[in-house]
């Protein structure tokens, strides 16, 4: 059982982080990116052509993370693969012992730098979750048995399935129902899209908590650490579904030190998320080249030492004081 699953089941506070994209830097780049955030992060998202730009595949990066002793969460988007390719990718992950899978629709190709490409969307994210569950039952979508069957006669591989949801995109009041539908389809953790409108995140988490959904689906709000005026403008205009209020953009534009202002915004975002009911942990996305995640975690008093085995065996729960 992967540690992310065990920790979330045990209601331990978890930290996940987006692994920066890998291009030509290979495994050395994986190690370089890991190093500063390692003490604070439980598992890393290997992204799947984010913003519809081609990079090293999520399975390859997941293997690289696992080889480095880090726990991967393989993202799988429906944009670039039909159902056969998605099944193959899931089985490939299983072959390498990668069990954490985050299923998502994916940004459209028009958001990227190869807009002439064909969008696939043969499955949607809900159907992809269900297909992963079909594999767990010991056969492919066709009904063909996965052979040889897994240990204990269970048949298929074991996955710890996750999904994403955007509390900041209309129809706001429906988003919790959609999250519940994802839980029914097999999702057990939910990484929330970056949300610069705290009232919408609050509304989503409140409803998820009040309906008991947070008991079945671990909520991980995203915290985005930017660095420059260009960065906040990029998120405001180019990231689909992320609504950045004008006053936030202005704050960074008018700041004496844009980098410090971005840190402040991320800190406020994190403190707000942590004050909400039913939050199981945080997901960090950093656009900084330095140790932005480590710095923010330290300021948030999130205990480090997650890469230490002794701590693990002592069963020291990483609860966060807020």
């Amino acid at each position, binding site marked *: 059982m992967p540690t992310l699953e065990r920790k979330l089941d045990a209601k331990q506070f978890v930290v996940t982080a987006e692994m920066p994209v890998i291009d030509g830097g290979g495994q050395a780049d994986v190690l370089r990116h890991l190093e500063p955030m390692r003490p604070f992060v439980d598992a890393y998202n290997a992204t799947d052509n984010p913003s519809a730009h081609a990079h090293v595949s999520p399975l390859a990066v997941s293997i690289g993370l696992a080889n480095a002793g880090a726990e991967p969460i393989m993202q799988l988007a429906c944009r670039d693969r039909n159902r056969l390719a998605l099944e193959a990718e899931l089985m490939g992950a299983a072959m390498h012992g990668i069990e954490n899978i985050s299923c998502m629709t994916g940004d*459209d190709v028009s958001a990227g730098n190869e807009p002439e490409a064909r*969008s696939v969307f043969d499955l949607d994210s*809900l159907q992809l979750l269900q297909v992963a569950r079909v594999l767990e039952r010991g*056969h492919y979508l066709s*009904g063909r048995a996965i052979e040889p069957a897994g240990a204990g006669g269970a048949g298929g591989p074991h996955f710890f399935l996750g999904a*994403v949801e955007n509390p900041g*995109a209309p129809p706001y009041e429906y988003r919790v129902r*959609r999250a519940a539908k994802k839980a029914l389809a097999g999702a057990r953790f939910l990484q929330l899209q970056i949300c610069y409108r705290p009232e919408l995140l609050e509304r989503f988490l409140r409803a998820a908590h009040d309906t008991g959904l947070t008991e079945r689906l671990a909520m991980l709000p995203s915290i985005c650490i930017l660095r420059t005026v260009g960065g906040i403008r990029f998120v405001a205009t180019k990231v689909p579904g992320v609504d950045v209020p004008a006053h936030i953009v202005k704050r960074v534009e008018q700041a004496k030190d844009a980098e410090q202002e971005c840190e402040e915004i991320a800190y406020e975002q994190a403190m707000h998320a942590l004050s909400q009911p039913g939050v199981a942990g945080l997901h960090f996305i950093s656009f900084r080249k330095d140790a932005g995640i480590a710095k923010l975690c330290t300021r948030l008093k999130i205990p480090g030492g997650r890469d230490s085995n002794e701590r693990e065996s002592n069963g020291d729960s990483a609860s966060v004081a807020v």
Partner: protein
Amino acid sequence: MSASASHGRAAAVIARAEHVIKGPIWGCRMCGQCVLHSTGLTCPMTCPKTLRNGPCGGVRADGTCEVKPEMRCVWLKAYERSEKLPLWRGHFDDLRPPVDNRLQGTSAWVNLITGRDRETPAGWADANP
């Protein structure tokens, strides 16, 4: 003419009639497995991502589509309409199976009567223990 040929011709005539009616009203794409009743009478195949199970996370704050900013999100319309429907509202949250791409261009009316539109891959039905 063989029985299957005449059946095929009749199905083609029905498909044309269906397209003439459903095309202008719902922008029907003739997927051959109609789910309009469960989507607030809004055709999910008009979503640029052809999503069958609800809106993606790319819906803009003003309610327009991530892919086509000039268009209101198909699933936002579907949700609002479904909330107003006296019937089928509970079906909005159904988990709709993957599209059978072989049915593209065939009549959903015929497929409804024959039950063909409810056939799913053998593995699909077994997903939930």
